[in-house]
């Protein structure tokens, strides 16, 4: 429940602003000229703000659709991402958002129509070619659905664009809208997982692995295409057993036939973000292991990366055909 909602003066009368504010009738509304006055300024502390995040409602003026970073795709030639929201209701200790932003407040850009228009225009640049749009880069795609109505608002756009593919990347159980909607072929609901032991230690506020699998089963039964994302893979002593059990846990309940794609990527963060994350949580075990710097990224040492990727890849191949597999690690 938000106590404070910051509202850009420009969107004060936007119907979506009003609808969102109606969900928090007790929240104090504070008006600002530009959301950057409140969000991500110098002199803010992500860790402290995470204790009581405020909501910020704003307009995104440009760059509604951006090129996806290397390694983010799942086989398509054209990969883009868009962020109707910045920050996340969950608190995964490995999340790069805490290193990227100084503020943990949630920003919702209420001008969805501009994002939709940009998606239509971008898809039109690649007629007859699969063009992927990732929505879970700066937030969890579904976790804030009851407030944002994101899927309800965006699925119709994709339903009319046969060459545009939407990936909803999530750890959330907020699937009510998806279960009420007619599944569309060009949308993949991709769930991220780490093994149970790691999830409990690092994914604060995230639904359990078991609950996520149950959500996937419901989506599958309803006809949605599903993705599995083991990204980031997190190392701990005995990771082989952890990941083996995780794959067994998932594939014993979800047959490979219902899976659209599976991707793997080891934990890696841009150096500056990693440093911020360590400063926020200097006593965190995740950051206490051995890391190397590789072309501006902080990664596990190469040997370990290869060992983890090979092990998990081999395990996965027992359950899925090679054609469903995608590596997330950017090319050397």
């Amino acid at each position, binding site marked *: 429940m938000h106590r404070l909602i910051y509202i850009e003066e420009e969107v004060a009368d936007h119907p979506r602003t009003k609808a969102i504010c109606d969900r928090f009738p007790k929240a104090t509304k504070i008006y600002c000229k530009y959301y950057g006055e409140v969000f991500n*300024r110098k002199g803010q502390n992500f860790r*402290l703000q995470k204790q*009581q995040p405020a909501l910020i409602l704003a307009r995104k003026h440009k760059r509604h659709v951006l090129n996806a970073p290397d390694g983010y795709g799942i086989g398509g030639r054209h990969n883009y991402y868009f962020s109707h929201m910045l920050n996340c209701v969950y608190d995964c200790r490995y999340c790069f958002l805490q290193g990227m932003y100084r503020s943990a407040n949630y920003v919702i850009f209420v001008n969805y129509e501009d994002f939709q228009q940009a998606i239509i225009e971008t898809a039109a640049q690649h007629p007859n070619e699969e063009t992927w749009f990732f929505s879970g880069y700066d937030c969890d795609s579904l976790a804030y659905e009851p407030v944002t109505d994101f899927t309800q608002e965006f699925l119709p756009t994709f339903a009319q664009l046969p060459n545009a593919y939407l990936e909803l990347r999530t750890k959330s159980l907020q699937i009510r809208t998806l279960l009420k909607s007619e599944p569309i072929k060009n949308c993949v609901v991709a769930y991220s997982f780490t093994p149970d032991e790691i999830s409990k230690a690092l994914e604060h506020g995230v639904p359990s692995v078991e609950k996520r699998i149950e959500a996937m089963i419901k989506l599958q039964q309803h006809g949605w295409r599903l993705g599995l994302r083991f990204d980031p893979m997190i190392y701990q002593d005995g990771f082989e057993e952890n990941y083996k059990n995780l794959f067994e846990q998932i594939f014993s309940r979800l047959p490979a036939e219902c899976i659209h794609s599976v991707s793997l990527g080891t934990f890696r963060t841009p150096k500056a973000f990693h440093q911020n994350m360590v400063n926020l949580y200097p006593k965190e075990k995740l950051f206490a292991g051995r890391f190397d710097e590789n072309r501006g990224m902080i990664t596990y040492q190469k040997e370990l990366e290869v060992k983890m990727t090979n092990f998990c890849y081999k395990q996965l191949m027992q359950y899925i055909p090679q054609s469903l597999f995608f590596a997330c690690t950017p090319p050397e």
Partner: protein
Amino acid sequence: MINIITALQCEARPLIEYYKLRGNARHSAFRCYQNDEIQLTISGIGKLAAATATTYLAASNPGGTSCAWLNLGIAGHAKTSIGKPMLAHKIIDNASERQWFPGMVMPITCDSEVLTTVDKPEKTYRKATMVDMEASGFYAAASRFQSCELIHSLKIISDNQQYTSEQITEKTTLAMINDNITTIDSIIQPLLELSSELNTIEQPPPEMYDFMAQWHFTTYQQNELRHLLRRWHALSLSNKPSHHDFSRHTTSKTVLIAIKVFLDQQPVSFNNKACQ
């Protein structure tokens, strides 16, 4: 630790008594009072005075501790009843139109409102804002030293359209602050907790000083040492870091390398309780 800035002695006096603050003769530029957790400075009226006192207090307390900041005082408001406490959720400097947004992460036990800082007393009341003469100067200065979640301005409404500012006296001001001392304390305590939380996060591992007494570390190396010792603690190893274990090393450089090599070989396991 919390630093409190008030404009007037009569705003400060109830706090001095409640928190048993003692005058600090070391300071000559401003009247300052303190106990182990609180430092209070009386700035005088106006945003320039508030900014100067804030900077003075920050500069007279060097060293790594994270302090919270509170500007406490009286303010006018067109419609709000006299004696009501309100926390500022947005501070506007009327002259420059600059604005600040204090980070509201702590529990708030009173209402909050916009606060506009003016350069001269005004006869007419503005709509939907408290009005004072210090907060913007205080906030602009304090935000150079601390993050916005730990900087706040709490005002007690002293005048409104019915009860105008001419009627304010030292005695009424003192009484208003006194009457709200519980609310004031309910803002100060969580701010103290937040500052202590930040200090715990930022605190270097205790063994660091033993290592520094044994070898000479440059500033860069001290950062590296702090990072390595934190890693050591985070890994929940059975043995604590001890400089004795590295006594055969003659230089700080080789000590750092030896600690790093040792830590790089340790297993990481989340099965025992994760540290924060």
